[in-house]
């Protein structure tokens, strides 16, 4: 059994930021990630981020991932367990981890769960045909492995991920037949949406996919318009030729470990599904268990990094670690989070978070 001060599950933006902040205060950290690289979804993000300088605006996710993982790897207070999957949390506060065919148990004094989210799916006839992908899978193929998923893509969902992946497909030389969005408006930031619109990609709001076509693989789809009650309007069907249907219909928090630990959970649609109740300092209802990033509610990577930083600072300071800049650092992170969630774009998140406060 490994004993550590802080265990962090997940080496994406939240987990990396948490590890760095906790280790800088002097705490010993074990960082567990199931992949053979750190950075989580950041490594697929070739576009520039928004926000202020402190929120890493105009940097690309892939560069941020490299910088954060370099710092984590170089810090001797942090032990990285890569290709390691947490199989469960047990009532005596022990994590079981499978790594390269072996089971290890870890007993941390504090636990930060930064497991991220999983893609949601959609129900329509023929949704199991080869050629139906999640947007995350398409982004992995194109941006990580340099493999085209097909030649002509129908994107389902006009949120940031759908629109950004559409643009990245265009950059990779893949045709985008169109983007459909069930809601009345494009959810993505306009700067992203404007790029695909300029490239001539039609965006159909208030549309959904009625069915996919194809015998052995996707050859197209029928899309249909929705009325104000989300019902399909007969006679508005339209056939789209495509060999890939890419689903970008949102994410949901990956919370198994939190359920196993007995954290109080609540269903908040604005945050993507069931999320843990948490204090402002990101501690759950189970003392010593913290959350950060998408597992606490689906947001952007910039917010995940800030939450990670906050959970890292708070878990380490609860163990008695401190530093001359601790209070200032913590106040600064809270201020950044508030800024990221301010204004019109943050309205949904603010509404969601209000329901998840402990």
């Amino acid at each position, binding site marked *: 059994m490994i004993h550590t001060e802080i265990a962090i599950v997940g080496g994406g933006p939240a987990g990396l930021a948490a590890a760095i902040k906790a280790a800088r205060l002097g705490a010993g950290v074990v960082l567990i990630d199931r992949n053979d690289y750190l950075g989580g979804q950041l490594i697929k993000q070739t576009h520039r981020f928004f926000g202020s300088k402190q929120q890493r605006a105009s940097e690309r996710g892939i560069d941020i991932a490299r910088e954060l993982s370099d710092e984590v790897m170089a810090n001797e207070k942090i032990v990285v367990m890569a290709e390691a999957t947490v199989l469960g949390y047990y009532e005596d506060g022990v994590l079981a981890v499978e790594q390269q065919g072996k089971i290890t148990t870890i007993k941390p004094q504090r636990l930060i769960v930064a497991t991220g989210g999983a*893609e949601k799916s959609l129900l329509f006839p023929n949704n199991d045909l080869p050629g139906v992908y999640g947007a995350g899978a398409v982004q992995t193929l194109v941006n990580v492995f340099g493999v085209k998923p097909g030649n002509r893509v129908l994107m389902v969902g006009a949120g940031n991920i759908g629109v950004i992946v559409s643009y990245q497909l265009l950059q990779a030389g893949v045709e985008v037949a169109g983007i459909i969005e069930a809601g009345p408006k494009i959810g993505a930031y306009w700067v992203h949406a404007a790029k695909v619109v300029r490239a001539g990609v039609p965006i159909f709001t208030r549309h959904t996919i009625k069915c996919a076509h194809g015998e052995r693989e996707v050859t197209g789809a029928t899309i249909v318009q929705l009325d104000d009650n989300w019902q399909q309007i007969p006679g508005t069907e339209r*056939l789209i030729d495509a060999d890939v249907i890419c689903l970008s219909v949102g994410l949901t928090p990956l919370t198994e470990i939190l359920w196993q630990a007995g954290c109080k959970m609540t269903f908040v649609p604005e945050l993507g599904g069931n999320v843990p109740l948490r204090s402002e300092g990101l501690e759950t209802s189970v003392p010593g268990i913290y959350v950060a990033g998408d597992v606490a509610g689906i947001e952007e990577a910039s917010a995940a990094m800030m939450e990670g930083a906050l959970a890292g600072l708070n878990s380490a300071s609860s163990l008695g670690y401190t530093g001359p800049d601790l209070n200032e650092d913590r106040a600064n992170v809270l201020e950044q989070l508030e800024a990221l969630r301010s204004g019109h774009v943050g309205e949904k998140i603010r509404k969601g978070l209000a329901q998840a406060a402990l």
Partner: protein
Amino acid sequence: MCQGSESLTVICRCEDITLDEVRAYIDKGITDLEQLKRLLRVGMGPCQGRTCTPLIVNELARATGKAVKDIPLTAFRQPTSPVKLGILAGGEGDD
């Protein structure tokens, strides 16, 4: 444009369970995720329900008129990911 008896809507990809199968059980009065899981194996495959559970919960909410948050979920048992029996049987590493 979307007719054809062979076109199926799959709700649980791991166990290859269709939306029609789930709805048929719901129509018989089985409006509880736990029972659907036992009868149909939905959510018991490699992904452990990460994809299908929210979809089935939506179906249950629609059929029963309950809010999604009032549909009870099933237990999140360990292990959360598939693990080979040999690895489990091997026990903890050399420490």
